[in-house]
């Protein structure tokens, strides 16, 4: 596989800015951490906030990743995405409540087994719901953005009401499993165990997703489909099936995120998904619609900034993410990692 090119391509040294260009989004993460380090007076608070920001970011990423791919692949804006978060949380937390004997046992293995069962049930339920949602609600409105917004929001309201019918209107409080309560102390900083677990799960999921998208044929089809779905079909692949698969996977991931978010907040409501959708929209937009990597970086930025600002200037916490979005869009109007679209 080494043939000399018929002419000799030369590598000229590009300017610093040009060489750094593709890495700037990733570099924003250490940059924002450095920002925190400068303004937050104590190192241990900074560490605590950083872990909690990363944990929050990872959970947002898990919830948002499906949405960005669904948009990228079929240009579908799903305002109902948040409902998978709520449904996932209710199914998962219900399982955890049923498995109380396992979550209360002082055994990490038993606790994790209970969480695994809850997560699998939540993902199965939201996967099936996603399949039905796609068929009944999304499919009839392909290509019509305004209708998509209206119809998917309608779907969201219907499913939220179903949650209230099934589980009642009250919020449900939940304690984390025994072994995941409390914090461990490192270098004088308290880091909640659960948040460390969330960071770990998020990182693993991101790597798995990245591997799938980059190294498997189905991943290639998805990435190619984001750029030019018509050509993918002209090569013989049924894009619609791929899209349905991505929709189901994205819904199941939102369901997983819902369980994790519920355990993080230790309370769940039928509207929790809708409430977090604002952050998800910000993340998906600043990441670049259709880009999983952009979504990941965006989620971490949002998580970190939210935590730092909430500590430094609580009143600004809400608008800090809007400010981040405005700043990033002024710099890159298509988001940090713009996705190439044919035509």
């Amino acid at each position: 596989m080494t043939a000399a090119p018929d002419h000799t391509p030369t590598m000229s040294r590009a300017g610093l800015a040009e060489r750094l260009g593709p890495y700037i989004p990733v570099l924003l993460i250490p940059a924002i951490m450095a920002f925190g380090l400068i303004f937050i007076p104590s190192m241990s608070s900074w560490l605590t906030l950083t872990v909690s920001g990363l944990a929050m970011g990872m959970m947002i990423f898990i919830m948002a990743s499906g949405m960005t791919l669904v948009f990228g692949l079929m240009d579908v804006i799903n305002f109902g995405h948040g409902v998978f978060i709520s449904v996932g949380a209710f199914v998962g937390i219900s399982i955890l409540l049923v498995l109380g004997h396992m979550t209360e046992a002082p055994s990490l293995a038993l606790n994790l087994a209970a969480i695994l069962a809850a997560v699998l049930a939540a993902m199965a339920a939201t996967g099936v719901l996603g399949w039905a949602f796609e068929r009944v609600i999304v499919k009839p409105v392909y290509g019509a953005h305004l209708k998509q917004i209206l119809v998917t929001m309608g779907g969201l309201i219907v499913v939220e009401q179903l949650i209230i019918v099934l589980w009642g209107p009250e919020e449900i409080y939940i304690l984390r499993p025994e072994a995941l309560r409390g914090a461990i102390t490192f270098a004088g900083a308290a880091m909640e165990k659960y948040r460390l677990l969330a960071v770990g799960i998020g990182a693993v999921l991101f790597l798995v997703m990245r591997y799938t998208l980059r190294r498997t044929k189905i991943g290639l089809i998805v990435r190619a489909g984001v750029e030019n779905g018509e050509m993918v079909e002209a090569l013989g692949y049924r894009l619609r099936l791929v899209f349905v698969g991505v929709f189901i996977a994205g819904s199941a991931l939102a369901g997983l995120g819902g369980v994790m978010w519920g355990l993080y907040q230790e309370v769940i409501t039928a509207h929790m998904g809708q409430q977090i959708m604002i952050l998800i929209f910000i993340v998906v937009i600043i990441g670049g619609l259709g880009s999983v990597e952009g979504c990941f970086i965006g989620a971490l930025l949002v998580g970190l900034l939210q935590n730092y600002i909430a500590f430094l200037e609580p009143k600004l916490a809400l608008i800090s993410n809007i400010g981040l979005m405005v700043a990033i869009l002024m710099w890159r109007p298509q988001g940090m990692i713009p996705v190439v679209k044919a035509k």
Partner: protein
Amino acid sequence: MSDPMLRLSGVYTDIAQYHILQGVNFDVPRGQVTMLLGRNGVGKTTSLRTIMGHWRARAGQILLDGQDIAALPTPAIARLGVGYVPENMGIFSDLTVEENMILAASSGPLDRTRLDWLFSVFPPLQTFWKGHAGNLSGGQKQMLSIARAMVEERRLYLIDEPTKGLAPAIVSTMAGALRQLKDQGASILLVEQNFSVARALGDSAVVMDDGRVVWTGAMAELAGDAALQERLMGLSMEAGH
């Protein structure tokens, strides 16, 4: 003569409210290169897109090897063995050259022998095998687009303006590649504005005007008749080169 590889009969295609194809009839005989010619905007690309199923024919038949494919979805048409090189090349720029080729080989893994052949026809593809397709030059992208169609043996190749905007040296690379494909007995429907390429490769010609076929015949006949060219296409093809 045996049945043609492709036959369009009475094909009408609308785009939005416009009637673009208005009863197109032509054949692509087996093992031949059929040139699809005509002025800008007469419906050549639309014909290819209709065959591929990107646009739906409102009426008419599209027979591939005798089977009507007019109502089939695009992936099914592709899987019947139609290789398509669209006018805009349809390169996946975020993927590497290799990944583009892997996707194009939709019925199995890349075939080593065929790949070596393609590398010999288009050496830059080997050089930039692991590079992003988006970084290729325009001519190299066109090579990739054609190589993708050629990576597996197809029953029919639909190729839309493969030399558009390319420097003469690369035009001759393209023509050479198409010549090799032709010599292997492929059935090709080729839209080509470069007359010397058209004349060199074409067995028969189909000339369109305003959504209809206005002339069909041997390429040699058209090539030898400047007045006919003038009447059909508004220019003498000799002016091209």
